[in-house]
């Protein structure tokens, strides 16, 4: 079973995505901010847990933004190659470029379609599987 980590400070959106993913057969877990997301992505506080197969990150979060979290994930050996999908209300060309420049694998623009989100998760995981 593939595991997906959802990092979003908006609890309604986070719980909805976790529910959708769980319903679709993924092992999904949520983190309420970038710091908690970074810890969870690295396999928990002691690093002994499972590193997720994919991470969904919200762009706008307090304390640590989605972009900062993505940079931190890419700098951490355990999570450097984990596919990331960025959830964002920002759809400007320059911002999309900024995300791809730091190694984000795909984008979902808010307001988002939860069904389309599932398709994108599936597609990114399939691409990552083909690469491995």
């Amino acid at each position: 079973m593939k595991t997906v980590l959802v990092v979003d400070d908006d609890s309604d959106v986070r719980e909805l995505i976790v529910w959708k993913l769980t319903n679709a057969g993924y092992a999904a877990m949520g983190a309420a901010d970038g710091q908690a997301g970074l810890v969870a992505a690295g396999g928990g506080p002691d690093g002994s847990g499972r590193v997720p197969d994919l991470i969904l990150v919200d762009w706008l979060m307090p304390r640590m933004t989605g972009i900062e979290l993505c940079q931190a994930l890419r700098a951490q050996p355990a999570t450097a190659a984990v596919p990331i999908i960025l959830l964002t209300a920002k759809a400007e060309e320059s911002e999309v470029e900024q995300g791809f420049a730091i190694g984000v694998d795909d984008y979902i623009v808010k307001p988002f379609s939860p069904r389309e989100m599932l398709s994108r998760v599936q597609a990114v995981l399939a691409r990552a599987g083909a690469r491995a």
Partner: protein
Amino acid sequence: MIGGEAVPLAAASVTVIGLAGAGVVAGRRGTRSSQAEAQAAARPVLFSTMDSGVIDVEALHRLPRRQRRALQDQARALLPQVRGTDHDNLVRLLEHTGAIGRARRQAGSRRSAARARAGLFLGAAGRPTEMDNLLRLLHDPVPSVRWAAARSLGRLGHPGAVSPLLASLEGDRPIPPDVVVEAIAQIRQCPVAVLRQGLSSRSAPVRAVTVDLLGRFHALAALPDIVRRLADDPSIEVRTRAAQALGRLGSPRAVDALLAALADGPATMHPQVVRALGEIGAPEAIPALRRALTGPSPQLRAAAAHALEAVRAPAQPSAGRRA
């Protein structure tokens, strides 16, 4: 002695206040945790309704009142965040619970905060039938209600809202240009022909918003009109937004006009002109951009440095954008 008594009295007061404070904090924590429990209990009903589109009336009625309220609060919070089938199912659920009917009534409330909230909610619900309600709120006496209506009309995305939104920039109760830009920019099927009529308006805010939006919609056909606004519009705001629009269009056909604006136009628009030249990535602009590096304002110098960097090392091949 008085002073001696005051100390224990003060200490007692501190203790009482401290205990009362702790009670309030514990009470709030309790409320928060019971609220979280109610939300968690309501989620399966909410999410499965969004997913399937089937409103399980019995399951809804089985929910205790607190959980029903939590379900409505979460549904309202999710409404502006989602689109597609889940959004449509959410709207049906909110219609069933009476939340949309209440919002329609609140659009006529005497309290401005209720009218603004209703406007935002009806826009997020995205029903074209709400257009008349929102157009009425666009002329509300209270600015926050008008702004909410403008944003919601943008969210609704109906092309018929473009003309009323442009008109809302004029009159006794104008809406700020950036609110209107943000609203119309959301209308994906915006009729560019209708928008272009705004270029000949006598109102400077209407012309400013129009050139801005023509750039955002990549309306290359309007390039000659935007160039004319850059060159000789009586409003500096319109000329500045025209420069910004030309940068967004990214066409080398605008370079001569931008260089002329940099040489002869008002200094306040120069940073925007320089940014546009950088976005177009025109090598022929390099000498002018170098001169701007020693310009009078820090904004101009910073924009020139950034533009020169973009012209010398374009991040993306700009061939596709050139027309």
